[in-house]
């Protein structure tokens, strides 16, 4: 009996050990942590899918990654839009000198940050398209937002660097994506148009959420109008701009109210938590402190009238140490809490898009009407009906210069796309040359992806 017990203990122990061995595999399986959600599970409910899409907005809004600063300041310095007063950072000075090194880390973030958000958009698009569990209207709205965001990021990239690799797949393909070569400018634009056209269809007219902080149909349309204009497809540019303007949703308030987050001019703005913008933080300083970045003297002097409300309201003259500095005060706040978000698309630009398209299509009267809409808000008289087509086109350029200064590198992009950069900047910017129009592909990227080819001149 005793022997048997011993025996059974022995057997039982062996069995127990054997059982524990076999359960090994199962034991170390661990799902997602309680604080995170698996990529494939992120698009199973409306709320979860929405949070992934909102992640794109918070990503470009993150002050730490500098996107909102970079995309305004560096192209601005490269053109005759902004000037760099402290010259303390040699890497920033390189933009002002049009002598950017491929090792410039700011140029690197102009490359990397949009791509990071394209990654976010790609994950959303692939997750949303693969999901069958979402409410149809929500899915359509979110998909539209993700495509519009992807288009917006590619738009910035193609205008800063030229043709860039078109990366359109989700994270499961990350290692292949990292080795893709550059696409042509036309291919990138074709994708942007495709994304925006689809977004336009998918997005509703009504804004999701508050404060026009997310893409709606009109915002996507306005961006599409801009894209057509840049491609010199004037008929489509005019048609898209007309859709926005004739919707009657937007109007042009007085300049001092244009950048408040409730402004009816805004088509799309990137909301911040504190109601303070990075542009405000970069441009607005105390009365006695020289702002790091100010409006370039030439641009300030290009206002046709001292009575231009934009000059009186959107700039401030600070004379410090006997020298005048022209501070940019479109945003009024630089600290604390407030009511300003980062405006990306606004009605004035849409008028100017249509004005230019119409001028190019030789609809001079229509063009003048659109220009006058913008001018009258600025307190300027209507343009003379005697202007020639060429004069109207130049009037558009001038109007864009004084309307859109300090915003999103508009001036730099305008000079490039209208081939006016060389006549305007030569002489004004000593080191400027034709190859300065594209920023260099960052050195680290050429190392990490040997399929990339550097822009000429670097």
């Amino acid at each position: 009996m005793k022997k048997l017990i011993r025996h059974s203990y022995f057997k039982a122990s062996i069995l127990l050990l054997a059982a524990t061995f076999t359960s090994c595999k199962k034991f170390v399986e661990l799902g997602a942590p309680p604080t995170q959600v698996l990529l494939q599970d992120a698009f199973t409910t409306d709320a979860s899918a929405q949070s992934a899409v909102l992640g794109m907005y918070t990503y470009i809004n993150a002050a730490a990654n500098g996107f909102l600063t970079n995309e305004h300041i560096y192209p601005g310095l490269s053109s005759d839009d902004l000037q760099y007063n402290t010259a303390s950072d040699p890497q920033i000075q390189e933009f002002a000198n049009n002598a950017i090194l491929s090792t410039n880390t700011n140029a690197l973030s102009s490359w990397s940050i949009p791509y990071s958000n394209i990654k976010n958009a790609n994950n959303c698009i692939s997750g949303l398209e693969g999901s069958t569990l979402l409410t149809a209207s929500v899915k359509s709205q979110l998909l539209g937002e993700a495509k519009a965001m992807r288009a917006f990021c590619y738009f910035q990239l193609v205008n800063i660097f030229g043709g860039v690799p078109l990366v359109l797949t989700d994270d499961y393909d990350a290692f292949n994506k990292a080795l893709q070569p550059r696409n042509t400018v036309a291919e990138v634009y074709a994708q942007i148009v495709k994304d925006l056209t689809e977004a336009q269809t998918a997005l509703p007219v009504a804004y999701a959420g508050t404060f026009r902080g997310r893409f709606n149909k009109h915002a996507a349309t306005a961006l599409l109008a801009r894209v057509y204009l840049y491609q010199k497809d004037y008929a489509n540019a005019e048609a898209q701009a007309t859709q926005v303007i004739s919707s009657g949703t937007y109007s042009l308030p007085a300049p001092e109210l244009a950048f408040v987050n409730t402004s009816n001019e805004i088509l799309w703005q990137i909301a911040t938590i504190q109601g303070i913008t990075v542009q405000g933080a970069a441009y607005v300083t105390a009365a006695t402190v020289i702002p790091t970045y100010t409006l370039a003297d030439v641009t300030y002097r290009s206002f046709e009238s001292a009575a231009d409300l934009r000059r009186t309201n959107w700039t401030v003259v600070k004379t410090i140490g006997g020298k005048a500095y022209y501070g940019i005060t479109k945003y009024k706040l630089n600290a604390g809490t407030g009511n300003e978000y980062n405006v990306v698309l606004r009605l004035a630009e849409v008028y100017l898009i249509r004005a230019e398209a119409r001028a190019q299509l030789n609809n001079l009267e229509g063009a003048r009407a659109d220009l006058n809409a913008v001018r009258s808000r600025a307190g300027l008289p209507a343009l003379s009906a005697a202007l020639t087509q060429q004069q109207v086109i130049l009037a558009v350029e001038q109007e864009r210069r004084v309307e859109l200064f300090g915003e999103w590198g508009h001036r730099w992009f305008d000079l490039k796309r209208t081939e006016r950069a060389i006549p305007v900047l030569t002489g004004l910017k000593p080191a400027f040359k034709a190859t300065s129009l594209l920023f260099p592909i960052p050195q680290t990227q050429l190392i990490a992806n040997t399929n990339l080819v550097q822009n000429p001149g670097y």
Partner: protein
Amino acid sequence: MPLSTSSAESRERYVLSPFSVTLRPSLFSRRLIHVSLITAFLLCTTLQCLLATSVNAQPAEQVNITLSTNNDNILSAIQKIEQGSVFRFVYREEELHNIKVNNIPAVQRSLKETLDLLFQNTGLSYTQLGNKIMLAAAVKKAAQDLSIAGMVTDEAGVPFPGVSVRLKGNNRISTATDVNGHFNLNYPQTTNATLIFSYTGYTSKELAIGTQTSVSLSMNPDAGSLNEVQIIGYGTTTRKTSTGSLASITASEIGQQPVGNPLAALAGRLSGVLIAQNNGVPGGAVQIQIRGQNTLQSGGIPLYVIDGVPFTNFNGGSPATDNLNAFGTSGASGGLSPFNMINPSDIERIDVLKDADATAIYGSRGANGVVLITTKKGQSGKVKVNVNLNTGFTEVNRKIPMMNLEQYLAMRREAFVNDGTAPNASNAPDLTVWDQTKSTDFQELLFGNKGHVNEAQMSLSGGNEQTRFFFNSGYRRESTVYQGNNASRRFSNRLNLDHTSANRKFAINLSVAYTNDNTTVPTTDVVSAYNLPPNLPLYDADGKLFWATGFTNPLASLLKTYTGVTNNLIANSNIRYNIIDGLNAKVNFGYTSNRLDQIAKNPASSQNPAASPTSFADFTSGNAQNWIIEPTLDYSRNIGGGKLTALVGTSYQQNSSNTLFLRGTNYSNEALLSTLTAAGTVTVSYHNIVKYKYDAIFGRLNYEWKDKYLLNATYRRDGSSRFGPQNRFGNFAALGAGWIFSQEDFVKNSLPFLSFGKLRGSYGNTGNDQISNYIYLPLYSPASTYLGNAATNVATLPNEGIRWESTKKLDVAIELGFLRDRIYLTANYYRNRSSNLITSNALATQSGYNSYTTNLPATIQNRGVELDLSTTNVVAGDFTWKSALNVSFTNNQLLDFPNLASSFYASSYVVGEPVNVIRLYHYLGVNPATGAATYEDKDGNGIINANDRYVADIGTPYYGGFNNTFSYKGFELGVFFQFNHRFGVTEILNTRPGALINQNEYWLGRWTPTNSDAGIPGASATAGTAISASYNNYTSSDAVYGDASYLKLRSVNLSYKLPSKWLAPAHVSACNVFIQGQNLYTWAKNKYTLDTETTIQGGPSGLGTGTLGQVLPPLRTIVFGINCTF
């Protein structure tokens, strides 16, 4: 060679002659060092040695021998038998003197028959114990004799045969325990009869019989002897039979050091183990590196095992750390070591496993070495109460010689003259605004106080043969050397219980430790402000704190306080059931729970009022738990003249950690900063929850043949939740072998002075999974909200293919004992090669990520030689002197890195150089005309840039420790030195001389127009001047880099054991008074640092290489105390 038992009481006079030996390790022939060794010749005519062998010989009736005797006395007969068989006799020589044995003819008989014939009618009796035959002369039992029976067990509670038992004062009355550990002794009636139990390699014990007729006791091995039990993974071994590489420290060495953290007591004492404290603030982390850096970026934390149960606190944070506040906030101490929760006086011994043979049983977690901690267990017998009270002080043992006010101001003025600019209120308030007559010694002000240490410990221990207990309760309070009411208080309790059933088949061991620690310190280590301008005012005219642009008033920093309260529970149990003879089933259970609540207060009054500051406070609450279950089966059996031991087992472990970090802002009153309720706004900084699961199956096969040949094979298959499904499991194995050549007859005969000799070696692989959790999973993580709605983002690129780092370890060693092991030398060579290194690799950012975690095919090699020498130098009467020396030579190398030049790491690593390689400019001296530093333009292109740098010597070519213990009567003195030869910064430079900051006295020798041939550049106050610009490369040049070696008098312990005649009337059985000192003095090549080895994460690479920004050094601690046992 005649054998006889050795008498523990007979003491020969041994004298040692010291002489010097030069060691030339071929591996480091470049760096030849001379090490003075103390070694000895024994002036003694006969060697007496008792080989303590295990019981595995055949019974006497089964062994046949042929013996003839003719008028032999017993000694010559014994000699004949020993020559012709494996049997050895144990006897007391004087007992056998002149005894004749019977004459027997040369016929083959069994040994039993032979002995019976031989001893018939001689009055001799014998007992066989394995291959030992114990002889005793028959003693006539007197009528008044008393009898005592008893049982002796070893430290593991296993019956102990062959232990000599004799009556104190009468060596003729003696016996030895039988195979069951039992003995029976008759003795004449005397008063105060006392038994002495002795066995070679074990501490002799005395036991007063009193009126008892039966006794039991357990024997413990001598520390340092060959039979000293060494703890290994899932079992034990002895120094004699171990095939692995281990380094150990025992309670006596730990107890001599007044440290709060047991790891701090190890520094310098273990070969191959580099230990550095991050700082000297109570609670601060202690980092350990065993045999070099094995990885580029993953964790290098060894596996800690307490009483057989892994104690893991690494929860996947980055950089890898096992600090309790890896998630959470921190005070001046920075990282909080989990070992602050362990009372050093609870610890019986710490064994560090280094090679593959010893570590492969821990598989994936063995790559960085394993630290096994064994806590004290109860001793059966009368309940013993031990009380230890001590008190003392702490202070900074070394200050940096800084310029005084006059020298500082002269340097500043000179700097402006050199620059050709004039000082004004904005660039030189020290020369134009501040009082130039009043100065502050910031070192004295900030960390010149004495801290106090008070400690009280009480332990109870006792039990019977079946059940034993040990309870220890300790309180330790340590205040800081900062100003203000800062202190760390620890209350720790431990209960260890073990029980064995009457039939000894079932045994359970329970241990529970609960520790509460409450630490209040400033939030930042104010030591970093040591170099403020000496005339920086601290208060303004109104008596308020003074603020100046660019300076933080250090007194304000002291107003920011940190309080951390830790509650730590460690509960372990080991259950053993003996199924059949030799087969045991065991289960280890372990549970650890740690709760850490922290508050870091930032009152408005501690901030510059110019920025209209508001008060805020950070609150964290962290909960980390882990449990583990490890069922094992072990089997041991004598097979083929040897002993086979087999072990199989599995392990299941789960860690979880949950940390909430809240910030309270908009406080109405800074007195309310302790509570979140008073905060106007509360924001969640993060809420971190991680889980980690781990399991394994493992096995070990061990065979010891003829006590000479040892073989040990281990295998383990590990699964970790940190890897993706296809790479989750890793296989690890090792083979170790040993040859105790001193057991061979030809060695015994030709090298009689060699008492022990063993060659051993091992090869195997181990792994590392100290990386972040969930790397293989694509995850959306919460991001900041967007217009009030929750948002998520994918933050890192997953890599499904991530797999184990693996380290292949080769180890060869020779162990030599001379003169009955009075001189014991271990020389160890190892070579570890780590590959599949998990690191972050660059990815083109068009993928959306700039890097991903992957296994690089690079290989790191660590190799070295470790020498351990312990000697008993003098045993003369009441005086003994023992020494222990260890030296470790190390060499770390990046062996291979395919495509390094085109990788992300092209500028970080160099193949053939250490992984923490640094490149320096070669300093050519000062341009006598300008006072600017000049550097060699290596590539001759006229520009000094990164390409002009040379790879510098780095690392610690050798390090070690030297311990001496002297005892005379009741006095004992221990003196321990630690030394480190290494390369590093030799002169600290803050910004540049002439800047608005004080400098150390080294810079008094700088260039001036009148001292134009100086070796040190001149002073400059303004950025952009020629002198100033020349300093840009100065601290990355060899001007301030080189031999930064040091020697530390790490600890001194003097104790006096009060004579028992004083104590007896008070019923005190033992009492010691002692004085102990720690971190007493440092001799260092770099005179301008507070400490030579403090390491902070993110500081210079390499463990223990010092920090350029100064932190509070490990403090000189001197305590006085008394330790009594009742």
